[in-house]
């Protein structure tokens, strides 16, 4: 933790490095496959990528333990960064499973897809590990640029290209604000490292005039990435236009990464200004969840529905930050993890409802699904109930912990609004189940579902954890606390 430490501690970067290595491996396999024109080799790319995810997860488990800083305090490996790494890995792993048979239908360049997923994940992990504004920015751009490409993966599709373009232009716009905010904070404190910023901000000799506009612009930058209202407008269009597995990945992993840095910047670098940013974030949280929920009430496209739902979830998670406590951080981490499982699960089901050549499904496809495909409908219903926050599924405890943190942090009013919102939100999740079970099947209904085993495994895993984290939520906390191999961790 000592800033003067000149040790590199490069091993702290092992998770991200492992992802990059596997990304290179995927590309190599792809190139090799192109040369030989052998289909089996090319088909191996997702599995190489998945192996990368699993190996990295193993590395993360191995590294659990004492916090280690690296590059003279530019980044840190601690419980929190590893927690975010796990969430990103979950999202990447599940998305790879969902993509395995989906992406070849959309774009022939299979290899670069998986390599990009891994590289993006590496950037996202760095978001969780960064303890310096410059590293945050680098990580932000690393994963954003990759995502712009993935959103437009289906080049022949106008909506996909439009989505990519929109995401890119608006993302660049928002990044500009972020850099400007970072610059202003640097201008006020003369530091980019979080702990130094915090030290300067509490120093009575510092002139803090510039720090407040700086904070405001940082909020805009992060707000764009996690889709807070009013910086959210890209979300439904991009979510709808991007290939569904990409949307699934984005919705869970981007949120995790952006919230990770958001939390660390505000709680480590700027805690002394909490009296100012606390109410602002609380207001944004209220706006975000309310508007997200209200807009979701009227959607008929399932992907847009889930997009607005993801906006409202961003609002709920922000409640944890507004609370500004350790409990809030732990709660948000649990939220992000649960959200990854249940939301990717829901998107995975959506891929099954899409017809040939489509990348979205209308709610009408669900009519009477309970009769046509009872198992699929039951799975979807569980994801919906979990998203709505019904116990005993993961989504319930996610909300529970976050709202409880808000009450404990003296923000009962915020928790009350959030709970009323989740009551409104229940309506549209419920609508999905109503349509599946309480409508008769008709011509629109999906009658044939072209499933495949990687997708089934993905849905199965997502389902298992959606339930497991609800029945044994302590699984996660125990994992994070025990630090299985502490003895082997590096000092």
């Amino acid at each position: 933790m000592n800033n003067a430490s000149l040790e590199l501690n490069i091993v702290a970067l092992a998770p991200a490095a492992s992802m990059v290595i596997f990304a290179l491996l995927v590309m190599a396999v792809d190139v090799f496959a192109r040369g030989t024109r052998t289909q089996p080799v090319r088909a191996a790319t997702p599995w190489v990528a998945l192996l990368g995810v699993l190996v990295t997860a193993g590395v993360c488990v191995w590294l659990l333990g004492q916090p280690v800083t690296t590059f003279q305090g530019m980044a840190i490996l601690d419980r929190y960064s590893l927690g975010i790494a796990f969430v990103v890995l979950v999202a990447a792993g599940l998305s790879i499973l969902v993509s395995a048979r989906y992406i070849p239908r959309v774009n022939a360049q299979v290899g670069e897809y998986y390599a990009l997923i891994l590289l993006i994940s590496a950037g996202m992990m760095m978001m969780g590990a960064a303890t310096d504004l410059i590293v945050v920015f680098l990580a932000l751009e690393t994963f954003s640029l990759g995502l712009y490409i993935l959103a437009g993966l289906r080049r022949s599709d106008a909506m996909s290209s439009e989505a990519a373009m929109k995401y890119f232009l608006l993302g660049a716009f928002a990044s500009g604000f972020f850099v400007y905010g970072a610059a202003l904070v640097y201008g006020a404190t003369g530091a980019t490292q979080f702990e130094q910023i915090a030290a300067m901000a509490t120093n009575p000799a510092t002139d803090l005039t510039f720090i407040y506009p700086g904070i405001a612009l940082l909020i805009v930058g992060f707000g764009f990435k996690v889709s807070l209202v009013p910086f959210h407008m890209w979300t439904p269009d991009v979510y709808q236009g991007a290939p569904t597995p990409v949307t699934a990945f984005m919705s869970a992993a981007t949120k995790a990464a952006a919230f990770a840095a958001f939390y660390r910047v505000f709680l480590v670098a700027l805690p002394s200004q909490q009296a100012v940013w606390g109410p602002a974030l609380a207001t944004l949280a209220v706006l975000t969840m309310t508007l997200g929920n209200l807009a979701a009430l009227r959607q008929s496209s399932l992907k847009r529905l889930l997009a607005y739902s993801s906006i409202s979830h961003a609002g709920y998670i922000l409640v944890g930050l507004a609370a500004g406590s350790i409990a809030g951080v732990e709660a948000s981490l649990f939220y992000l993890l649960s959200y990854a499982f249940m939301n990717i699960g829901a998107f995975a089901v959506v891929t099954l409802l899409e017809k040939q050549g489509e990348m979205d499904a209308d709610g009408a496809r669900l009519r009477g699904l309970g009769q046509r495909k009872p198992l699929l409908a039951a799975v979807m219903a569980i994801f919906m109930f979990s998203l709505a926050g019904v116990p005993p599924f993961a989504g319930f405890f996610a909300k529970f912990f976050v709202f409880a943190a808000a009450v404990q942090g003296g923000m009962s009013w915020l928790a009350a609004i959030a709970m009323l919102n989740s009551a409104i939100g229940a309506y549209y999740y419920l609508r999905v189940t109503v349509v599946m079970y309480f409508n008769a099947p008709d011509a629109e209904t999906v009658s044939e579902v072209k499933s495949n085993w990687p997708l089934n495994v993905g849905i199965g895993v997502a389902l298992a954890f959606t339930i497991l984290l609800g029945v044994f939520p302590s699984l996660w906390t125990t994992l994070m606390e025990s630090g299985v191999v502490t003895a082997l961790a590096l000092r």
Partner: protein
Amino acid sequence: MFDYAWLLFAFPALGALIILFLGPWLSQKIVGWIASLAVLSAFGVALALFASLYALPEEARSITITYWEWMTIANFSVPAAVLIDPLSIMMAIVVTGVGGLIHIYSIGYMDHEPRYQRFFFYLNFFILAMLILVMSNNFLGTFVGWEGVGLASYLLIGFWFAKRDDQYGWYADAGKKAFLVNRIGDAAYLLAMFIIWSSVGSLTYAVVEETAALLPTTTLVFITLLLLFAVSGKSAQFPLYVWLPEAMAGPTPVSALIHAATMVTAGVYLIVRTGHLWDLTPIVAQTVGWIGILTAFFAATLAIVQVDLKKILAYSTISQLGYMVAAAAVGAPGSAIFILVAHAFFKALLFLGAGSVMHATDGVIDVRRLGGLRHKMPQTYITFLIGAMALGGIPLLSGFWAKDAVLAGIAADGAFLIYSVGVVTALLTAIYSFRAVFLTFNGKPRDMHVYEHAHENKLIMVGPLWILAFFSITIGWFNTPFALAMEEFLSASTGHQEHVGLFLELVVVTISTIVSLFGLLYAWARYIRGEHWTLTLASWFAWLQPALDNKWYVDRVYDAVIVRPLAAVAGWFARVFDPKVIDGAVNAVGDVTVDAGEAVRKLQNGAIPTYAFSIFLGVVVVLIYFIFAG
């Protein structure tokens, strides 16, 4: 025996799993019996637990069994544990006992139902969730059960989702309404739980009970007010009762089990379980007493004018729940549980009787088309009459003792105003109970077609009626004013109740007797004899007719204050906030305005400058805030 308490949950869970996985290959009868046996086995376990508990000395009758540490996050931990004490075991016996009988009845009632696997799966799932609700030793576990029973209720109300009629509209919508109204109550429950946790540091009932006295009054008032909201959602009290009448869209056994005997009493259970909190906040407790008794009164006035037999019973349930809630809040928790138990038997009996009528008349349940059925269905008639007598408070039946215990408890507490409203309600109760009987079974048939087709049902349906009728008569004898056996047993959980003096007791009993007999007399004179004086008496209240026809305008107020504004706001967002919305398959809150401002659409349809402008506006606002706040 307590080591085997987990069997209580294992049996219904096993039943549900068997039906889920093997159901498609089993016949309706077998599935029905598997489900019934699962519940009856749980009933056996509950009885055994009761016996073991009874064998213990009174002060030792509270056993906690911890299964695993449910969750630990930060410094917060909740166990997955059950609490076996007189209160929880009494609830478990009612849930599994009445539940078991209703399961058996359902085998007969649902004999033409193609989706019987699903039905019995839901029923077993419900029993499991209800047991979790009453057996948990902490607020969180109860909440899991609380949501579980809500889910089961929603699924079962909308069981015939494809049906639609003038009574209920789409049956699926009735289920949705129940779910959403309950979500409001659930949100309040959650918030109460958070406040308890942040102020007490634990969610275990025992710990909360010990530390509650140390909390500041404002905190306690907040907690109890929020719990009040939760209770009014689940137990159908004002202002959240509106879902229950529509819940009658579900199959009749469901109405009997969930919407009369068990689930709706969960709120009463919660008040009794957290009685110490209410004792510390007398103001809120008084409010609850009033809410309960006024709900009882207004629901009773509505029960009198209903023409649908099930709706009469539904409003009657709301009314009886009002008694329970009032008693639980106003220092008579033992009596509240007593009437809860008695009510579970006689109301389940009445609902199953109504179901028996429905089964025989091919679904006709409108009392204006019935009449004279006692000749066709003598057994249903006699059992239904017993149920109505119990409900109407005819002396010596269970309802009489129960209502007497409640009213005496309220009077002994000094709440004479509440007591007098309770007496008036008792009169109304007697009138509507016998009105239901007389219009259905006595007099001349009003619709010969229906009458001709009616027939008595098979033993599998009539049998449970007789068993319930037996208990509707006798259950009260366990708790007569001079031998309060049940309340004594419960006092280990509820605390000792103020003893009612002999003089007061005699006065209350006398008044109750007179009131119920007068109600019987009036109903007999009016609905069988058609005597003139009854009509004159009724005409004094004719000015209330419009209000009663409109259910005291409550639904309209909700429509105007909540539903319409919300629909309008959502519609506005659909147009302005999100131009790409296409309202299609999934039905939305309100009506759809398809042509939604083409100009706005063009301006915003994916236009990047607009989005950027939105971000820019946000930037300006946030900047202004930070510059001025900083």
